[in-house]
């Protein structure tokens, strides 16, 4: 039962991918 409820949680699973992309972008920007 709990697992079904948990399945409705909104989690940013892609957060790491976004963080890394943003890092690369600003590292490039800052040479």
């Amino acid at each position: 039962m709990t697992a079904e409820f948990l399945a409705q949680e909104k989690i940013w699973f892609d957060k790491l991918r976004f963080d890394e992309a943003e890092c690369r972008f600003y590292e490039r920007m800052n040479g």
Partner: protein
Amino acid sequence: MAAGTLYTYPENWRAFKAQIAAQYSGAHLKVASTAPAFTFGQTNRTPAFLNNFPLGKVPAFQGDDGFCLFESNAIAYYLSSDALRGSTPQDSAQVLQWVSFADSEIIPPASAWVFPTLGIMQFNKQATEQAKEEVKRVLTVLHQHLNTHTFLVGERVSLADISVVCSLLWLYKQVLDPSFRQPFPNVTRWFVTCINQPQFKAVLGEVKLCEKMAQFDA
């Protein structure tokens, strides 16, 4: 002292934060998690609920005075005592630091790893391996910090410990078996110290640490 009703589904780790905080502060908290008081997926879709909580998400708190609050960290903060919030500007800022750390650094990889083992998400080998590496990084940061600290902020339990313990619950129960957690003894020592505090036990009951890493549940 705050008093009111917490709407949530049962066994919600986000709601546990507020419930444990209330145990420490003495705030009088009624938990509405089962019918007829609250049915997840129904009550939180009614106009009356959405009028107070426009996102329709839980946990949601309504004070006996009518004051409404959503977002689990805000509710836990409101139900806390000053001691839990941090008694100096530096301590209260560090409490916020670890509360943010739990949400931004622990929850995404912890969910990516645990959800497939609960059968609530497709298993993806690469995503799981990456999540494991992320969890190791998080446990390393905590292990180093807890080399010189008994609790995360100051000398006693704070909202920082409550938030980070609750965000690690599924990991410790489901996948952090003895060999995986072996390199991070400070974290396991701290985690067990916290869950054995009467205020945590009153909400979490007996927390059994994972003996065998759960694999995905096809």
